[in-house]
């Protein structure tokens, strides 16, 4: 059996108390939200915190608020996101991303905060202790070398969160709370393109809130590539959102690619190709070509490298066609192998 290693369990009821514990325990302590990432990692001894600080009893992190902004507590589960009509109608990209994370049971347990802070993934890392020991440990945990690119000075493990690209595309901000106060940052600034130090926040900071502008005039979407229609992590995620003028001209937009790098990556050249234009087939093709250039997948996830590179442009195209208003339902169920309408029923 794969049992958890020993650890001390603490379950504060206040954010301030959790932050204090983190500050005093330092790097030996890790936060536990739904545990659907942390516990598998602990069972495989990829992460072995001496103290686990559970956030589930912190009520304040379990609220959705909709005033001037939409605020989502970091402890809100992905099922709760899927069940929110407000999110479904106003922030479709986030809804589609959450609905395609893992499986129903995992979404019942998994939180949005945990999803945004999800550990990066790699075929050489997400293995049991014995497996990793047998080929010798890699740089991300206990070793020196990167097995994917032995010449690489940094770890190339993959950002595999579905909601992060969707939320970066929606221009989300997040609140980070530490023992000595809190700050709001743009979600895109939370990430660094480094498989080991993939979050820019201090270890003592807790992600407590996600904030979204309440904008009716933006449309958004998320397209996910994975082998099976459920359970699997993304091998590619394309999030796009856009604001259109009455005549269909793109006034503003954001294309973001997930799972092709150690961070969600904005495709700025795709944005530039779109802004000021209507979404004709030509404009979409140019943006897709520009957007797929930021995809720099490594050979450390599912599917072949060559095909993953090729398919990125196609996924950007699907996303932009959906924003244009094309009926993409058939294509989506073919790609997702899944009827998204049935999620959360």
């Amino acid at each position, binding site marked *: 059996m794969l049992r*958890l290693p020993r650890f001390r369990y603490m379950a504060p009821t206040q954010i301030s108390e959790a932050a204090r514990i983190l500050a005093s325990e330092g790097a030996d302590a890790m936060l536990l939200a739904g545990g659907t990432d942390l516990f598998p990692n602990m069972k495989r001894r990829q992460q072995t915190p001496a103290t686990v600080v559970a956030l589930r009893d912190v009520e304040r992190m379990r609220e959705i608020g909709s005033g001037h902004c939409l605020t989502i507590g970091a402890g809100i589960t992905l099922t709760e996101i899927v069940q929110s009509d407000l999110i479904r109608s106003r922030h479709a990209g986030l809804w589609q991303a959450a609905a395609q994370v893992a499986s129903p049971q995992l979404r019942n347990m998994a939180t949005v905060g945990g999803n945004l802070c999800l550990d990066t993934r790699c075929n050489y890392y997400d293995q049991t202790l014995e497996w990793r020991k047998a080929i010798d440990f890699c740089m991300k945990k206990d070793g020196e070398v990167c097995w994917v690119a032995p010449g690489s000075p940094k770890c190339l493990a993959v950002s595999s969160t579905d909601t992060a690209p969707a939320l970066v595309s929606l221009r989300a901000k997040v609140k980070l709370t530490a023992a000595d106060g809190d700050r709001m940052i743009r979600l895109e600034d939370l990430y660094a393109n480094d498989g080991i130090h993939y979050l820019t926040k201090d270890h003592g900071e807790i992600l407590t809130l996600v904030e979204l502008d309440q904008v009716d005039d933006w449309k958004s979407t998320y397209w996910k590539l994975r082998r099976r229609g459920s*359970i699997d992590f993304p091998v590619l995620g394309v999030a796009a959102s856009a604001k259109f003028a009455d005549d269909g001209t793109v006034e503003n937009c954001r294309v973001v690619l997930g799972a092709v790098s150690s961070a969600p990556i904005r495709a700025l050249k795709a944005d530039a190709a779109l802004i000021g234009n209507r979404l004709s087939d030509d404009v979409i093709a140019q943006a897709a070509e520009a957007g797929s250039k930021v995809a720099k997948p490594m050979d450390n996830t599912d599917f072949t490298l060559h095909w993953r590179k090729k398919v990125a442009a196609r996924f950007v195209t699907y996303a932009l066609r959906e924003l244009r208003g094309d009926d993409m339902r058939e294509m989506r169920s073919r790609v997702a192998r899944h009827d998204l309408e049935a999620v959360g029923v």
Partner: protein
Amino acid sequence: MSERTSLLQIGGAVHNRDKIRMTLTVNGEDSEILADGTATLLEVLREELGLPGTKHGCELGECGACTVLLDGEPALSCLLLARQCEGLDITTIEGISHGNELHPLQDAFADLGGSQCGYCTPGFILSSAALLERKPDPSRAEITEALSGNLCRCTGYNQIFESVEEAARKIREENS
């Protein structure tokens, strides 16, 4: 056990097993138990409470064999600490029948080949029971979706979906 010892040694710190007292409400009954504070709900159900109906498969969240219901919603007992489940209503496969009378889902799975080796069956039945509670007349797409966190290596799934449809029909008949 030897595997565990070596894991702990490589992991560095070896902690004493801290047993803690907890009260779990399983299938409507409160049990007070003394268990390891880092034990999963799956381990406690099988090893402390003598309820082996909940299966351990991957133990990493990938297969759904360990599915239980927490306050009526499917969750994976391999990724939950038992201590986190205090105060919640835990339903396992042992609690799904009424005395000697099988749940309509159990009847249907047995009659229609929804269960072959049976290893995945408790998880499928609990996911299905939660669905039928929410939606007495689910479409095939809704059934597929609700069961998409449970893997079966034997049936090819169609018999499972048919079993759920049959059970749903029976339950609706009984209630009408």
